[in-house]
């Protein structure tokens, strides 16, 4: 997905690094191979990056400058519009903002990066410990004990979907199935957002007017995923 932008912007001094928050390299491998990724495609089985950067969902994008400074709070950026009719995220503004930053045409963020960066509280960190315990137990084949800790982790950090959805494949729950839709539905019913995009590049009607998207052919999409596996 990121290959085209990487190859376009690498000569301008951009490095794209993707990190799959998954159980093993075999989970994202089909995506990485299908994309023919030419940038570093890393795998984070221990949720290290989620912990360090307080990421609570995917996809999450973060911009870092030449000095190692975070120049934009984390954001949602679906690089492809393939799923836009479902995700409701159009790629037009985030991609334009990225190009403008790399070219030096615009600042990375109009606001105060640190003030707009969310940090984890102790309860959230406890949830991360509970997830780590569940993951370890699961890898030992102690699935029943693991399940209790995954449930506990989700109770402690109900807003952290790297825990609640990310644990589903480990627990034998389909992360695209009824359990996911029930979880997302209950979350929405509480008036809470599943994704927290930054306002300056939020998708609007203007994006669809400027660059219409095609309705996703779900059956063809499902087939392409099956063939990719």
């Amino acid at each position, binding site marked *: 997905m*990121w290959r085209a932008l990487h190859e376009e912007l690498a000569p301008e001094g951009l*490095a794209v690094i993707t990190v799959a928050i998954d159980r093993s390299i075999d989970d994202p491998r089909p995506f990485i191979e299908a994309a023919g990724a030419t940038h570093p495609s890393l795998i984070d089985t221990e949720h290290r990056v989620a912990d360090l950067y307080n990421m609570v969902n*995917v996809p999450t994008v*973060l911009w*870092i400058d*030449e000095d*190692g400074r975070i120049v934009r709070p984390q954001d949602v950026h679906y690089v492809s519009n393939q799923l836009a009719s479902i995700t409701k995220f159009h790629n037009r503004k985030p991609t334009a903002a990225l190009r403008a930053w790399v070219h030096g045409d615009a600042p990375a963020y109009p606001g105060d*990066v640190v003030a707009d960066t969310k940090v984890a509280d102790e309860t959230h960190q406890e949830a991360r410990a509970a997830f*780590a315990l569940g993951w*370890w137990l699961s890898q030992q084949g102690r699935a029943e004990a693991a399940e209790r800790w995954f449930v506990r982790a989700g109770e402690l950090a109900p807003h952290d979907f790297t825990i609640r959805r990310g644990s589903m494949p480990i627990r034998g729950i389909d992360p695209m199935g009824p359990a996911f839709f029930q979880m997302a539905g209950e979350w929405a019913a509480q008036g809470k957002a599943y994704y927290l995009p930054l306002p300056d590049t939020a998708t609007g009607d203007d994006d669809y007017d400027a660059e219409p998207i095609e309705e996703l052919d779900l059956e063809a999409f499902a087939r392409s995923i099956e063939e990719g596996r």
Partner: protein
Amino acid sequence: MTTWTVIDEQQSHLLEAGDTLVLDPSLLGWQRKPEGLCRDEVCIPVPADVPPGAMDAALLARLLQRPIVIDPDEHVAAFAAPAAERADALRSGMAPDFELPDVHGILHRLSDFRGKKVVLYAYASW
């Protein structure tokens, strides 16, 4: 005595303890000194009635402000990073460094990319 596993972020340690987990603070990189628990230049006071040596895990976690979860049936415990440490790191404005493998098992460090603009993109198959 029972064998316990203690998960400290990315590392796991095996140690012998009873039904209640007690561990030496050095396992987490802290040394017991007259001033308290010390690591580098930092010392955290320890209540006077706590004897030197192995320490109750929950007490140690509280003193170090590290969230802990303990499974007494499975004899395993996990420490998380202190919330304040993670928050301070993010609020410093600098991107926390990490090292992770790629599909070929080759390790990459974020700091290897210093001097370039970086887009860090987290995704998942789920």
